[in-house]
């Protein structure tokens, strides 16, 4: 069953097309990876799906409902969680409070009911020891983990991860991949934009390639990575 469906979605800034007739379905329980060169429109696609940016044309349906014109807050409450490519913590709030915001507003829980849930997410994402640290003081890896943890606190049906492994060391990346794999195994549908291909392909079961706002490939990771067009455009390999 399709959890997310984009139908002929377009977005332009002036004459620049950043999303060009994108049609895409994500099934419930799927782990989908999105790759593409810088400027291909990957993050914009997340902005359109979450309602941070309005679509130019086309429709977006989530969990069976047309959400094309619904505000970002409402889409979040319906179960669309996301992380940002450049971490955007609530800097003056503590790590724990960042999660409470997500759980109280995004998941619509009463504040008195969220303590245990938020603490468990902190444990799962390796942030429990930093629970009472102001989020603005965290180093990069922990900021990335906080992005993931805060999105999880909203109880997402679909989790959109935007280059969450970028800038991490190999061991940090391995540890993050394990966490994401566990989240997916727990039943959360995942769409993951990533440049760290070995991390991405170790989790996802389908890969989409974007270039100039268009989908140029969609299929099993091995098949997509073997495609001549993808290797030329994305990996810069002359075939």
């Amino acid at each position, binding site marked *: 069953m399709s959890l997310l469906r984009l139908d002929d979605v377009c977005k332009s800034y002036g004459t620049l097309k950043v999303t060009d007739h994108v049609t895409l379905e994500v099934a419930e329980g799927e782990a989908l990876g999105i790759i593409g060169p810088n400027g291909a429109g990957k993050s914009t696609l997340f902005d359109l799906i979450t309602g941070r940016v309005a679509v130019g044309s086309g429709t977006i349906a989530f969990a069976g409902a047309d959400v094309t014109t619904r505000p970002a807050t409402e889409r979040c409450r319906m179960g669309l969680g996301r992380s940002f490519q450049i971490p955007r913590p609530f800097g003056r709030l503590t790590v724990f409070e960042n999660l409470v915001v997500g759980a109280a507003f995004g998941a619509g829980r009463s504040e008195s009911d969220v303590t245990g849930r938020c603490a468990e997410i902190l444990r799962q994402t390796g942030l429990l*020891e930093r629970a009472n640290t102001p989020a603005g003081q965290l180093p990069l890896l922990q900021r990335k983990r906080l992005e993931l943890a805060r999105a999880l606190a*909203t109880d997402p049906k679909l989790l959109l991860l935007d280059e969450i492994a970028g800038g991490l060391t190999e061991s940090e990346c391995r540890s993050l991949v394990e966490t994401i794999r566990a989240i997916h195994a727990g039943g959360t549908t995942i769409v993951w934009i990533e440049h760290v291909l070995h991390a991405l392909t170790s989790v996802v079961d389908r890969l989409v390639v974007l270039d100039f706002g268009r989908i140029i490939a969609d299929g099993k990771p091995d098949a997509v990575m073997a495609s001549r067009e993808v290797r030329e455009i994305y990996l810069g390999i002359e075939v």
Partner: protein
Amino acid sequence: MPVSPRYRVTTQTTASRVSLVIALLLVVAAAAAPLFVSRGTVQDLFFILTMLVLAQFWNLLAGYAGLVSVGQQAFVGFGAYAMFAAVSLAGLDPVVAILVGGIAAVLLAIPTAFFVFRLEGAYFAIGTWVIAEVVRLVVAQWQTLGGGTGTSLPRSATRDMIGVEQLKDWLGLKSSAAGDVVTYWLALALAVATIAFIYRLLRSRRGLGLAAVRDDASAAGAVGVDGNRMKHLVYLVAAFGTGLCGALIYVQTARISPDAAFSVIDWTAYVIFIVVIGGIGTLEGPIIGVLVFFLLQNALADYGSWYLLVLGLIGIVVMLFAPRGIWGFISDRTGIELFPIRRRLVIDDDPQTPDTD
């Protein structure tokens, strides 16, 4: 068998418990002050308390919601004029008419929000100032309340105000002095209620959402916080409190004019100074700031326009060397919070205790 950890949240600190006791004692002492101090001191305390209320509401707007308004004098003046109208035209008691001032300020804030919330940052600040000027010019056309030159409250209204007769009998005061005590007690009640209300708001779910919007409105939207709604709520609440305070100030002075009631210097510039030097985004900051402002005002009263230059210079020095204000400077070094808002996660039955830096 392993014990699963139990989690709980605490906000209280030892300093906050001590400060609560001290605050209660101070409120009792302040309530009893008119029995022991001169009328001049009562008027000084009234000034401190009303400026504190204005500063707390401006701090709520700018420090917690990121809405830097330079037009709060619109609500002071409009609340005051509404109170004057309710007393002079409708014959209400001035104490009751103070409520009319607060309600009128909210009624003004609803349409003005429609315009100013289309603006952001510096444009929002200028927009609020423009609206305040427009309201001043419109009110100055209201001839029934004195037009551009202003008017006074009817002497009978202030003489017969709620509580004045009883105080005259009880303390043996003249009507005017008894009126000052009544307005002082109202100012004390308003200041305590304001601090209690804002503290409760900031500790609530809404307060947490407000802090998230302040730190990153776009990220807050992505986790379900409706930033626009939060900001509207704060704007209306601040308008109500500022309107109440404006009405109360003009019950005490009993004389009003558009230039005084809508003064950007008296009701916004001084208030910004108080919040900035005290510590923006903290409840303690405006309390420290208003005391510093009062002391400076008295110390520099004989130096004419040098007074404003010195205030400006102090504001610049504080912003350069203690950008989080005097209270921020103290709190950063000592970790003391008299009004703690932060939720701390505590783990029982588990050796892994989160840090608290």
